[in-house]
C-alpha cells in the first residue's frame, strides 16, 4: 500500500482509500470519453460523413441563400391569420396540458397513488413521452385528416406527458412529515391533496406550464409544416413552390413569434416564482 505524508499514521488508511476512489473515478471518466470518441468516429465513417460533401454543399448553398432576400414584405399582412392560429394553438394546448397534467401527476406519484394506478399512469406518461410529437401528429392526421385539430391534440397530449412527469416528481419530493401532519388532524385523502399537495406544487405547475408554452409555440411551427396548419404550413408551402422570399418572410415572423413568447413566459415565470401571483 502506498504511503502518504499524513501527520498521523492512523489517518493513512482512510486517506489511501480516498485517493484510490478518486483514481477509479478518473478511470471511469476516461473510459466513457474514449467510448464516445470512438462512437463519433465510427458512425460518421459508416454514414459517409465527409468534409468534401460539406464544402461542395456550401458552394451550392450560398447563391441559393441569396434568393431568400429581400423578404416579401407585402405578404406580411396575409400571414397574420396563420400566425394567430399558431399562437392560439400553443395557448390552448398549454392550458389543456396544465389542467389534465395535475390529476395525472397525482395518480403517478408513489406517495399518494396506490401502486396499480401509479404503474398504469407512469406507463401512459412514458408511452406518451416516447412518441415524438411528429409521429403523434402523423397518426392523428390519419384519423382526423389535415388541419388544426390533429396538431392541437398532438401538442396537448405531449404537454400532458411532460408536465405530468415533472409534477409527479415534485409531488414525490414533498416531505412525508408534512403530509403526515395534515393526515394526523383526521383529514381525508381529498383534503390532504387539496390543502397540502396542491399548494406545494402549484408554483411548479405554472413555471413548467409557461416553459411548455414556449416549447408549444416552437413545436406548433414544426407541426404546422407537417400539415397542422398555422405559420409552419405557410412556410412549408412557400418552400415547396420555390417562393423563397415568401418563406423568408414567414421565417422572420416565426422568429418574432418565438422571441415574444419567450419574453412573455420569462416575465410571467419570474412573477410566479416571486410568490406574487401564485403562492
Amino acid at each position: 500500500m502506498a504511503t502518504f505524508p499524513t501527520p498521523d499514521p492512523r489517518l493513512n488508511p482512510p486517506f489511501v482509500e480516498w485517493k484510490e476512489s478518486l483514481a477509479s473515478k478518473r478511470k471511469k471518466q476516461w473510459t466513457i470519453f474514449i467510448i464516445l470518441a470512438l462512437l463519433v468516429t465510427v458512425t460518421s465513417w459508416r454514414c459517409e460523413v465527409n468534409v468534401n460533401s460539406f464544402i461542395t454543399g456550401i458552394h451550392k448553398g450560398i447563391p441559393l441563400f441569396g434568393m431568400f432576400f429581400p423578404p416579401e414584405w407585402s405578404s406580411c399582412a396575409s400571414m397574420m391569420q396563420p400566425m394567430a392560429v399558431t399562437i392560439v394553438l400553443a395557448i390552448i394546448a398549454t392550458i389543456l396540458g396544465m389542467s389534465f397534467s395535475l390529476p395525472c401527476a397525482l395518480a403517478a406519484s408513489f406517495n399518494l397513488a396506490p401502486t396499480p394506478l401509479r404503474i398504469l399512469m407512469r406507463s401512459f406518461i412514458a408511452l406518451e413521452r416516447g412518441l415524438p410529437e411528429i409521429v403523434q401528429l402523423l397518426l392523428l392526421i390519419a384519423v382526423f385528416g389535415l388541419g388544426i385539430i390533429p396538431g392541437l391534440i398532438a401538442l396537448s397530449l405531449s404537454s400532458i406527458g411532460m408536465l405530468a412527469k415533472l409534477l409527479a416528481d415534485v409531488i414525490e419530493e414533498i416531505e412525508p412529515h408534512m403530509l403526515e401532519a395534515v393526515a394526523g388532524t383526521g383529514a381525508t385523502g381529498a383534503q390532504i391533496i387539496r390543502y397540502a399537495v396542491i399548494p406545494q406544487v402549484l408554483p411548479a405547475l405554472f413555471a413548467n406550464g409557461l416553459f411548455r408554452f414556449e416549447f408549444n409555440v416552437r413545436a406548433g411551427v414544426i407541426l404546422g409544416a407537417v400539415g397542422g396548419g398555422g405559420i409552419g404550413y405557410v412556410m412549408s408551402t412557400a418552400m415547396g413552390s420555390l417562393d423563397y422570399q415568401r418563406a423568408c418572410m414567414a421565417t422572420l415572423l416565426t422568429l418574432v413569434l418565438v422571441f415574444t413568447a419567450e419574453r412573455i413566459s420569462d416575465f410571467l415565470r419570474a412573477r410566479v416564482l416571486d410568490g406574487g401571483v401564485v403562492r
Partner: protein
Amino acid sequence: MLSVSNISVTLPNGKRLVDHVNFRVGRGEFVAILGSSGAGKSLTLRCIVGLTQPSEGEISITGEAGKIYHSTNVCAKELRRARRHIGLIFQGSNLVKRLTVLENVMLGRLGHISPWRSCLFGFKDSDAREAMVALDRVKMAPFAARLAGSLSGGEMQRVSIARAIHQRPLIYLADEPISSLDPKNAEAIMAILQPLSRETPVIGAFHQPGIVAKYCTRALGIHAGKVVYDGSPQMLPHQLESIYSGSDQQAYFPVLESNVPPSFFGPSAQPSLQQGVPV
C-alpha cells in the same frame, strides 16, 4: 384520557422496536418520553396517532361523556375520527410552506369540517377568526398573512402548536418539539406547552432532562423499546444510566422508504424490513 396497553411493534425478522409498552395519561399531566435515538419514542407516538400500526396491543382515547376512540385495529374512517382528537406537533418543518400561517392553523380542523365543502369552497370566516385566537395564544398573530415557508424554526414550531390548539384535541402529542431549536426558543415553546397541559394532557418526546425536570409532571424513560422508568422528572438525573445505556440503534422510520405503501389515507401497513434511515 389516553390508555396505551401492551403495544409492541415487531419487524418481520422478529426484532422488537417497541416492546410491550404500557402507560396511561390523564388530566393535567405533562409527560416527557426520553430515550436515545432509535429507542422507540417516536414510534410509540406514531402508534398513538395511527401513522404506524402496532403488531399487538391497543390504544384508546376517552373523550367527554365516556366516548372511546381507538387508533389501533380500526378502519380508515374510525382512524380519522380518532385522529381528530389528537393534536400532533412534529419537530420542525411540518407546515405547508406555500400556505399562509393562518391557513396552516386552520388545517387543524380539517377533520371536523365536511370534506366536500372544505375542498370546494375553502374555510369559513368564522374558522379563520377562531384560528386567529389560537395563533394569538402562541403570540404569532401578527404573522397571520405571512407564508409559512418564510418563518424561522422557532416561529414554525409555534404555528404548529397553534394548529394543534385550533384542533381542540383531547390530547397533544409532541414529537421532539424543541430538538431543532436554540435554548431560548426551546424554553419559550415549553412555556407554551406547560399551561396547555393543565387543560389537556401533553405527551412529548424530549432529549433534554434538565428542561424536562423544569416543566414536565412525569417522565417515561424508554430503552430498546421497553419502558425502564416511569416517575417524577426530578429523579431523572439518577436514571440517565439505565435510559441511555449502551445502545445507538438506527431510528426506524417507515414512511421515508419508497417501497412502503402510503400510510396517510388510512391505517398504515405493518412495518417492513426496509429500514435504516437514521433520523
